[in-house]
């Protein structure tokens, strides 16, 4: 007889994932059994948010366990349970909740079908990200990558009546599959080079041996980097980003920009800082180059964008560059700063996309020129957009500044002076395109007056623009509050990240 010694299942460690998947399945089941007349979307949303909340609850439990007992692994070393995983998971969960809030009216307004499944897919993807955050084995990394990506392919293409959405889906899918094949090949090569896929195993192996033939390992490392760099949208693996961000439904884009980036960086950080820590000298060189071109590419590419979402996409590329500065440092400060950055960026970008949602518009096309004179026409929306853009530009006293300060500090500490200079300079260039949007809203009134009919129509109807719904308003409030709060009193988040940087 075959004896299968099933490993002890540590339920605490997998509870967040289980909750999310269960909630997703519950939604599917509910949809399947509910009669046609029954409203399914609102309950699905409710289940989804509750599931996420429950997941958050378990995460707090995990946090206290980790803080008290230190990091641990679980399920045959496949799961790493440490502050890092909880931190990233928190970002993911918050992003998912905010994203669902953003979606709530958006889907209805756009007439997007299969709304309960949408919620389920978001939950599944979030589950994948949580798994990613705690993945302690390259196989889990790969599978988690797929679990988080495949729902996103679907979500990107979710607005099936819109060609742009479908296009975003197919592009994301083709390139995603391509890159995950590359990543997988990297896993294979590293497996060949070290004989294991376990991150700890690799670390131990590399720490105890001196490899004479490093070729396979290095090639594997390169391919892993390519695959993950694709996910975090680093140049030159970024080209999907503008198209997909622009085409996808705005809440999905917000989710991709915040949570997916966090998950991608989670994997990157964990692999580099544990498994390949012996090779930090090498990957720091690679990341140096990647960070440099990412900063430049993202910033420069954004300069002449005419669509707001596309602009935010390029800015998200640039932000990946900043985070890469932190990663590149290869120090605790670097890790910590990257975490803070991810956290802060999630709120800044979701806030910005919340504005995109609030702007309305029929076809999800958001030409910047349409924002003309919004400073007067929709002062609150314009003001908030300006706020988020300035935060992304890293202007104090917003959280964006604290985030950038962290990664720059990491670069300074690690003596990556060239990156430091590149970072500060690109943030200046970056300010240009953020300011361009703001100028359009605030300073363009005289040159081309807003057509009178439009103006009078706005005035007559009283509610010239679709009113901003309560959920979106709530999201905006949260994002503004957090962005200012961290900007003024960053201690809490920095301490949180410091505890989280005790990686397994």
């Amino acid at each position, binding site marked *: 007889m075959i004896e299968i010694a099933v490993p002890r299942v540590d339920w605490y460690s997998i509870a967040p994932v289980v909750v999310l998947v269960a909630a997703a399945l519950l939604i599917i089941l509910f949809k399947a059994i509910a009669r046609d007349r029954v409203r399914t979307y609102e309950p699905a949303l409710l289940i989804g948010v509750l599931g996420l909340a429950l997941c958050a609850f378990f995460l707090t439990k995990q946090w206290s366990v980790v803080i008290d007992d230190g990091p641990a692994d679980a399920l045959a070393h496949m799961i790493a349970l440490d502050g890092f995983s909880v931190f990233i998971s928190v970002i993911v969960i918050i992003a998912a909740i905010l994203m669902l809030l953003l979606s709530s009216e958006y889907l209805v307004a756009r007439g997007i079908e299969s709304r309960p499944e949408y919620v389920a897919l978001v939950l599944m993807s979030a589950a994948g990200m949580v798994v990613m955050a705690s993945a302690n084995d390259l*196989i889990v990394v*790969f*599978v988690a990558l*797929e679990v988080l990506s*495949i729902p996103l*392919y*679907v979500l990107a*293409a979710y607005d*099936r*009546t819109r*060609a*742009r959405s*479908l*296009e*975003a*889906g*197919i*592009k994301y*899918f*083709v390139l995603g*599959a*391509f890159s*995950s*094949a*590359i990543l*997988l*090949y990297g*896993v*294979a*090569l590293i*497996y*060949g080079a070290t*004989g*294991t*896929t376990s991150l700890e195993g690799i670390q131990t192996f590399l720490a105890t041996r001196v490899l004479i033939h490093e070729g396979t390992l290095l090639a594997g490392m390169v391919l892993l980097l390519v695959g993950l760099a694709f996910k975090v949208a680093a140049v030159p693996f970024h080209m999907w980003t*503008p*198209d*997909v961000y*622009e*085409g996808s439904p705005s809440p999905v884009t917000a989710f991709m920009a915040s949570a997916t980036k966090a998950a991608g960086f989670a994997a990157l950080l964990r692999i580099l800082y544990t498994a390949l820590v012996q090779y930090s000298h090498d990957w720091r060189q690679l990341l140096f180059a990647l960070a440099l071109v990412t900063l430049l590419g993202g910033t420069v590419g954004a300069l002449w*964008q*005419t669509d707001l979402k*596309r602009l935010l996409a390029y800015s998200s590329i640039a932000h990946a560059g900043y985070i890469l500065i932190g990663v590149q440092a290869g120090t605790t400060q670097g890790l910590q700063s990257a975490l803070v950055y991810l956290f802060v960026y999630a709120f800044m970008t979701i806030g910005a996309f919340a504005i995109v949602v609030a702007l309305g518009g029929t076809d999800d096309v958001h030409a910047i020129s349409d924002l003309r004179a919004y400073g007067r026409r929709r002062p609150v929306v314009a003001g908030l957009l300006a706020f988020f853009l300035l935060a992304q530009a890293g202007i104090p006293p917003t959280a964006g500044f604290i985030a950038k300060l962290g990664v720059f500090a990491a670069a300074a500490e690690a003596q990556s002076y060239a990156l430091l200079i590149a970072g500060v300079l690109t943030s200046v260039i970056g300010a240009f395109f953020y300011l361009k949007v703001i100028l359009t809203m605030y300073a363009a009134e005289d040159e081309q007056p807003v057509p009178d009919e439009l103006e009078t129509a706005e005035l007559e109807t009283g509610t010239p623009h679709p009113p901003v719904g309560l959920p979106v308003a709530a999201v905006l409030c949260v994002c503004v509050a957090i962005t200012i709060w961290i900007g003024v009193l960053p201690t809490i988040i920095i301490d949180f990240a410091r505890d989280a940087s005790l990686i397994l």
Partner: protein
Amino acid sequence: MIAAARLSETYYLTFAVILFGIGAVGLLVRRNVLVMFMCVELMLNAVNVTFVAFARALNDVTGQAIVFFVLVVAAAEVAVGLAIIVAIFRRRRNGATADDIDLLQG
């Protein structure tokens, strides 16, 4: 019968590299989305060969186990990918190639 001398894994691995390369290049040059998917499958298969070869060389189960996961992933990917294509084709009978999907650019 010639003695079944065990072939060095280098052969298989080199083969896999070439297969991977063909798949990758195919994805780059073909315009039919379905064929592009097939090229991804070629790449995944190359990876599978790699894993199996390493598994034999290392006498380790991991390599073979991973192939299972790859197979599942491949299946899932194909299902979703094809669904997207179907959705697109529902809308657009003509212009079947990847080059026609270029609303988003710049």
